[in-house]
């Protein structure tokens, strides 16, 4: 009975994987074929000769390597600052009392529901008045600023789950609020921070429109722009485009593996929350 159940569960997971991986198989096969001005038909995918040429080409074109490095810098700093700032903000909302707190928070949540797609022009105007157009600082600032609400919202829930009684030992030792924040809230929220890190990384890594708008010189562009350049004025080179996007996927997978291990471990050994 137990065995049957286990097999059944695994079977379900495998079927799920076919659904999930199917499109990727299509993507990988496309990246291995050439002469694609539209996406190849199933017949072509089955019969055509496969080559790694697209990967080599993609790596060498459109300043791919430079943009790859730029993306890592931008994404890395965005990650660092948004984690820091959003945990501070979440702590403020979770553990401080001040007039207008809930109103402010509701305003924050409300902003999540308003289409943000045309915000780009006022955002750009602000960067311009700060003289940050075409700089990494400007792009990072914009990424961090526009993502804070969501991350704060996420972390606040976690912080509020942490029992206040844990703070007492710090208070007895004469520690202040920052000590409490640093030595209780942050370490106990590592799972949440890890999750947030993954989300923040991928959201930034993938972003195209804002990056292109803010970065004026070609040398400052990020990876998604290189991907778009494989789609030309009259035709798209899908083999190259997909090969490039597969390469671009690798760092995200690494980040996921690193951070998810961190948070899973932290949780499994979790005994302190219970009491």
């Amino acid at each position, binding site marked *: 009975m137990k065995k049957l159940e286990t097999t059944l569960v695994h079977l379900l997971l495998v079927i799920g994987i076919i659904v999930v991986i199917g499109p990727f198989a299509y993507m990988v096969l496309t990246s291995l074929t050439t002469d694609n001005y539209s996406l190849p038909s199933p017949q072509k995918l089955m019969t055509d000769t496969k080559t790694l040429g697209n990967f080599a080409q993609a790596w060498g074109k459109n300043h791919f390597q430079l943009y790859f490095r730029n993306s890592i810098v931008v994404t890395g700093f965005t990650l660092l600052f948004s984690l820091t700032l959003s945990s501070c903000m979440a702590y403020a909302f979770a553990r401080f009392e001040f007039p207008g707190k809930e109103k402010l928070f509701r305003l924050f949540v409300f902003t999540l529901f308003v289409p943000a797609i045309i915000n780009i022009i006022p955002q750009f105007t602000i960067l311009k008045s700060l003289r940050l157009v075409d700089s990494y600082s400007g792009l990072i600032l914009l990424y961090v600023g526009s993502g804070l609400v969501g991350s704060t919202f*996420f972390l606040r829930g976690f912080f509020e789950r942490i029992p206040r009684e844990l703070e007492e030992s710090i208070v007895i030792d004469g520690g202040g609020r920052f000590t409490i924040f640093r030595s209780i809230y942050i370490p106990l929220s590592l799972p949440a921070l890890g999750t947030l890190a993954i989300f923040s990384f991928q959201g930034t890594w993938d972003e195209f429109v804002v990056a292109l708008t803010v970065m004026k010189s070609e040398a400052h562009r990020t990876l998604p722009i290189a991907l778009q350049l494989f789609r030309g004025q009259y035709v798209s080179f899908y083999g190259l485009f997909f090969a490039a*996007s597969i390469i671009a996927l690798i760092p995200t997978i690494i980040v996921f593996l690193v951070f998810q291990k961190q948070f899973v471990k932290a949780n499994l050994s979790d005994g302190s929350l219970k009491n």
Partner: protein
Amino acid sequence: MRKALKQYAQVSPYLVVGLALTLAFVLYPMAKGMYISFFHYNVIKPETSESAGLSNFKHVFTDPMIGTALRNSLLMAIVTVPGQWIAGIVLALLIQMKTVRLKVFWRLIYYVPVISSWIVVSYLFRFLFADGHEGMINYLLVDILHLIGEPIGWLQNTGTANLVVWLVSIWKGAGWVMVLYLAALQSIPRSLYEAAEIDGARPAAAFLNITLPLVRPLTAYVIINLVNGAIQAFIQVYAITQGGPMDSTQLLNTYLYKQAFQYFDFGYASAISVCLGVLIFALTYTQQRSIGRDRIEF
């Protein structure tokens, strides 16, 4: 008064920087959008913009496309929010089971759609669901599995085109829900389940009575984010259907983008955006008090 000042002084080190950034890059653009919605706005020479009074808003209520776009946006939320949520929870529960091996592997595989680029995925689905025998899905259904006789023109009909858009949204989002619930499930003390098992509760009952209430704050967060995702949804329509056939799959978001950046009608685009914000604010008004306040103690 003095107390309030003191409280502000205490909280400000944690709040000020983040608040300033949010003001600059979220709240100010939003306020600006509201302002713009009262003008026939010229984005390049704002000083030449003519006041529009309420005419942009009147237009929102008379434009026949708004009805279609609103319907699609609502359907998007109604279908993909529960779709992603259920798929994600089921996956999390399956992977979380004691007997399942290779947890890291499953988790990674199911997460790959989440981390892949939207634009790439959208193109993939557009071609997977191409009509005739050229699309992989039709090829599978007709030529390999012989489930249907004739290939389906997926992107040629409003219903099926919307279906493809929903499918790609669920396909891409389910892993995100899964990862969050996996983390949450692991933080629930096993002792609670053991107690339930002793009481003879079935797994489904244990899920409904123990797990769900315990992860309520997470669920609130997830649902809000999924709704947010449905409202901000853009690329899947922009890249798969371009709003077609005959503009019948436009979302409010894609439609207002078109008004702003292709027709340069920023006043109208902002008015649509404001109306949508107000609508959602009204719909969620009663829920808002509890948002973020949920707190559980084990």
